[in-house]
């Protein structure tokens, strides 16, 4: 039986309560009759033999590209960049897609007699990966072969010696990327394309870039002009990256792009019910839900977080594309859409969503309030093609504890952003003008980013810019079950129950609004007509 596509449920009296993620826990909410619930398509059948598929893709590239083995020769400088710990979510069970691809690429390189090989984690301004995370992504064999010899690097966007300025686009955008990557004879980039935003020219132009380069598209104006940033053809974020990518190609950087797509098999056995439709829950699912809810209630958030972060997703590969960037990406996007696209008819007054414990920026860490905002208003709000799920002036209701919890190792500048910037203003444009520069160039944050495991000082700003489109579009944002002080500081409204939230929303959208619930994760992309 082939997997069922996505589905929009109309809530009636017989509909069981709907599952809302709520940080390291869940809420069951009874939605008003007449509401709609958007369910993701079921996981696609994975590739039967991923290694064979990878090898085949490397040898039969798309677009204007020679096969990888033909590009490899002894004495050449080869650099292989790969997506960092922010992908996929949750981290996938071993073997990771990157390990599979990397091993195939390295086998070909070894066969071709290439000696000068360097691996680079494409961090952009993300935190460095730990040894354990690198081992998980690349496998012990690759790690032990490269790391001790100093050939496994992590991109350092603040090392002036390790960057090269390639030029300025016709729109005046600086293109500055990793020197080793730019000066190699061949740059192979290994992607995991979890969502439609990932990959394409964005891989190199963002993943291996510096602040000087990133600020041209990581800003409020660009984000407001990206509708959505999940839709490459209507995304200024992508247009900018494409201009940069083309300039990189014109500068002579030879890129061999490898993109992989995953199915939406997100949670392992015990948490199976999380990706099922509530009315189809089996007795076992119900028991699992009741048991985990009861256990979570008695578990301190810190412990629950550790449990959830140890979850490894049973994601499986659904496609591999290799070759020239744009041709590869077109095919990849089609494969992402095949898994994630759900047709939704018309917008809604109120969009509800339950936010889980994880986002791309807090793997093995805590989803702090700024990341909560980014996950809801940045990522989930933008999971659309065509029109936003919620109408302009509508209300977004999201559910998350939003405790004022921060990781001092990963998110030091977030703490100061929350304490010093947000109390002043929540307007992305004002924030960018008044505060970005000082955080971005702060030597202490730079130090922590370069030597430790800290996101760059400017990163919380980017998270806030990610929300810019939603903030401009929405009439109100309400957080159910969120810490009131934290929620208010971000300019949102706290509500203790969904009923309260709907009551508050009636000030904006009246007393008989339409309501749509985005039942994610698993990830989907609403195709709103």
């Amino acid at each position: 039986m082939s997997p069922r596509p996505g589905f929009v449920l109309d809530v009636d009296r017989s509909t069981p309560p709907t599952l809302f993620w709520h940080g390291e826990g869940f809420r069951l909410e009874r939605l008003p009759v007449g509401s709609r619930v958007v369910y993701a398509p079921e996981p696609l059948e994975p590739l039967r033999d991923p290694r064979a598929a990878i090898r085949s893709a490397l040898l039969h590239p798309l677009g204007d590209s020679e096969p990888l083995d033909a590009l490899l020769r002894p004495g050449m400088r080869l650099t292989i960049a790969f997506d960092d710990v922010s992908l996929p979510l949750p981290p996938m069970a071993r073997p990771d897609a990157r390990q599979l691809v990397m091993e195939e690429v390295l086998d070909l390189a070894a066969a071709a007699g290439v000696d000068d090989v360097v691996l680079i984690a494409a961090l952009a301004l993300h935190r460095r990966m730990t040894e354990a995370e690198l081992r998980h992504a690349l496998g012990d064999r690759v790690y032990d072969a490269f790391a001790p010899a100093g050939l496994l690097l992590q991109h350092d966007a603040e090392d002036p010696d390790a960057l090269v300025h390639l030029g300025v686009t016709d729109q005046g955008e600086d293109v500055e990327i990793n020197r080793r990557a730019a000066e190699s004879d061949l740059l192979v980039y290994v992607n995991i394309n979890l969502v439609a935003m990932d990959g394409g020219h964005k891989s190199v132009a963002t993943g291996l870039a510096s602040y000087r380069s990133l600020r041209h598209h990581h800003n409020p104006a660009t984000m407001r002009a990206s509708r959505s940033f999940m839709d490459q053809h209507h995304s200024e974020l992508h247009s900018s990256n494409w201009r940069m990518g083309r300039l990189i190609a014109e500068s002579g950087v030879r890129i061999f792009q490898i993109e992989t797509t995953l199915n939406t098999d997100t949670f392992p056995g015990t948490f199976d019910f999380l990706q099922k439709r509530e009315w189809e829950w089996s007795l076992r699912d119900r028991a699992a839900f009741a048991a985990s809810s009861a256990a979570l209630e008695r578990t301190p958030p810190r412990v629950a977080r550790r449990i959830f972060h140890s979850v490894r997703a049973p994601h499986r590969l659904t496609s591999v594309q290799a070759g020239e960037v744009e041709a590869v990406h077109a095919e990849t996007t089609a494969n992402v859409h095949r898994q994630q696209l759900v047709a939704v008819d018309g917008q809604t007054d109120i969009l509800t969503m339950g936010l889980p414990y994880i986002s791309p920026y807090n793997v093995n860490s805590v989803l702090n309030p700024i990341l909560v905002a980014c996950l809801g208003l940045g990522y989930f709000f933008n999971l659309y093609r065509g029109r936003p799920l919620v109408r302009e002036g509508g209300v977004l209701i999201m559910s998350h504890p939003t405790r004022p919890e921060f990781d001092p190792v990963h998110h030091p500048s977030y703490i100061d952003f929350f304490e010093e910037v947000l109390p002043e203003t929540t307007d992305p444009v004002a924030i960018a003008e008044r505060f970005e520069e000082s955080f971005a160039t702060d030597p202490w944050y730079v130090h922590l980013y370069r030597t430790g495991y800290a996101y760059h000082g400017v990163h919380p700003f980017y998270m806030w810019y990610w929300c810019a489109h939603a903030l401009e579009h929405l009439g109100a944002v309400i957080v159910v079950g969120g810490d009131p002080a934290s929620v208010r500081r971000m300019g949102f409204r706290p509500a203790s129950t969904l009923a309260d939230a709907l009551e508050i929303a009636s000030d904006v959208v009246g007393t008989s609004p339409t309501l749509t619930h985005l039942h994610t994760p698993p990830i989907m992309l609403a195709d709103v007509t």
Partner: protein
Amino acid sequence: MVDVRHALAGKRFFVTGATGFLGTALVERLLRSVPDCQVVLLVRPGRRATPAQRVAREIVKNDCFDRLRAELGDRFDDEISARLQAVAGDVGTDRLGLDDDGIRLLSTCDVVVHSAATVSFDAPLDSAVEVNMLGPSRVAEAVVEARALAAADGRSGPAHFVPVSTAYVAGTHQGEAAEELLDGNRYSVAVDWRGEVAAARRLRDDLESASRRPERLAGYTRSARDELGAAGLHLLAERAERLREDWVKRELVDAGKARAQALGWPDAYAYTKALGERALTSRFGGEVPITIVRPSIIESALAEPRPGWIRGFRMAEPIILSYARGLLREFPGVPEGVIDVIPVDLVVAAIVAVAARGPVGTSPSVVHVASGVRNPFRYGRLVDLVQAWFTDHPIYDADGQPIVVPEWSFPGRGRVQRQLQRADRLMETAERLVGSLPVRGRRATWMAGLEERHALVQRALGYVELYGAYTETEARYRVDRLLGLWGELSEADRERFCFDPAAIDWDTYVRDVHLPSIVSHARVRTTPGRSTQVPRAERTRAAVLSPDRHLAAFDLENTLVSSNVVDSYAWLASRHLPARGRAAFVADLVRQAPALLALDRRDRGDFLRSFYRRYEGAPTDRLDDDGWELFHHLLLAKSYPSAIARVRRHRALGHRTVLITGALDLVVEPLRPLFDDIVCARLGRNGGTFTGHLDELPPIGEARALVLADYAAAEGLRLEESVAYADSASDLAMLEAVGFPVAVNPEAKLAAIARRRGWLVEEWGTAEGGPRPVLPLGPLDAPGARRRPGDSPFSPAARAGARRRLEPRR
């Protein structure tokens, strides 16, 4: 008939004790109500003030003179300087410390009023003896000399000596006490005052010697260490010396009380005053015309210079205020007993009238100024009035809530005393117990609150022990002579110089005069609601963060990070240990923990030196690398974000920032970009390994203050304009060295000190969402990792050696 104004007009008065409550009122009244009189004051020179400055500051500026100032207007200053004169002297030294000019000045005076006394009921015996017992005789001796000098010049000299004593010299026995010399009092024990003086002086010498015996000195040092922890030699020595002085003083206080009670007086005050009278009359009774004025308990003014005027807090005020604050749940006393209170202006008027009438007969006479017989005021009535008044006019706590006053049930003194003593012992035990726990931060601040409550209980106990006798007294002080004098006054003088105790309406006096006055004096909150004032902590914080500051010095452990050298060592040592080796390592370290803690408490320097031996032979390059991992995985995870933000804030304000810590260089290296400078412990390196010895003294304890001072001096920064952040009493030297000390998450001892001294206290926590390792152990190497040679960088021999060195040195 006595015409006061006429009798005293143009006379010269010589007054001692003018800076006191009674003295100030007397001087004011003389200047205001006796035409053209002049007043010479015997004033002790202050540490930084001449007698004239003290007079201006402590007497003329007092609100007692407001009325006179208003009446005289522009003429006030001229009038004061023309009629008021100060001469340096001290009733505690022979000849009052006067030179010949001083005696000559005294010889020009007509009346001498001696009101200087050690009024504290719990003064050390020897100082009470010097001032109260010998003072009157010393003044009389000077008067004799002055009279001789005047006679030689053909003048008359001082014709009347009026020493102020206390009604309680007659004791607190049941029954009436007449206005007579003590020798005629059948209740008073005949005791030779000279013997008492000699014994008191000898006792002081004996106690000074006893306090210096080695075992006592060791005890003070131990107590100082208990209180301050490892604060460094100098501070401990200073504290120990203060403890020694306190002990001597306390022994003298106890001795005074014991001696007084053995002879039938309630306390050392009454006892020394009584023997002072005896010494005076026995030596000078036939030579100098003397009238002794004996007031009872002097309280705020009934009418002059204004109703309610009071200077300083007397005996009843602290008790009443403690009651109003709800702190004194009970106070002993007999409800129907008479509490003998007399307003200060009545005492002043009586002294003036006595002076106007002049001496009676050839031998000394006595006048009581007391209310108990003429207009008795029952203790029970006082309590009712006070309770009613504070029920109508509650004072408010810090949250703006009214405080409900308790109802007293007049238990016996013994019961209250026992209750309070029990509470005292209990709290002392609790304090000692909790004080030995390693609490810090909010809990420690709460502890300091416990200490404060303990202090209140002790104070309440003190009141009961000191003043309990006065609420139970059944002695009644006759005022026949006082009333006789009253009878001799004209109507006009009675109006002007009222001293008839019958003039007091007690209800009005307590409700409308006394209580409003002491409440306004006490600066307690009398309005509800939250204070609109900026909280004190915020004001202090603003001062700390003023751009005017020069330097901000930070401690590391528990100030910036919630971690310590043992954590760091454990992390580094376990960094590459396989899982099975860890259990043994942890068990080993846990076994040593008590010894480590004890040594740390004893001497931080010894602890560090001994602990760092463990690094002997460890490879430098590997630990330098691991130091970075340690920082990011452990120290940063356990850091206080607010502390880091504070360092950055200081830097942004242009202050120099410096980290001063006993932690190792390889551990704090990653913090370098946060600070302008770092001063830390540095381990010796020899080739590729550590020697296990420190290159120089680690910057801890007092050394830290010196390092800071040197640093500031070298950089041209001023310590009084600088800020220091630290968490423990062992950092006291550094905190005291700067103008703006800040206690961060203070442990109990420092919390108590910070609270007492009004230092800013910051409660900084680790980030809520950060990783919180249960044990400070390095991450396990991945299963697939190729093992590096040597599981731990620390050799077993070094570890064993360090453990041996942990044993206390003999």
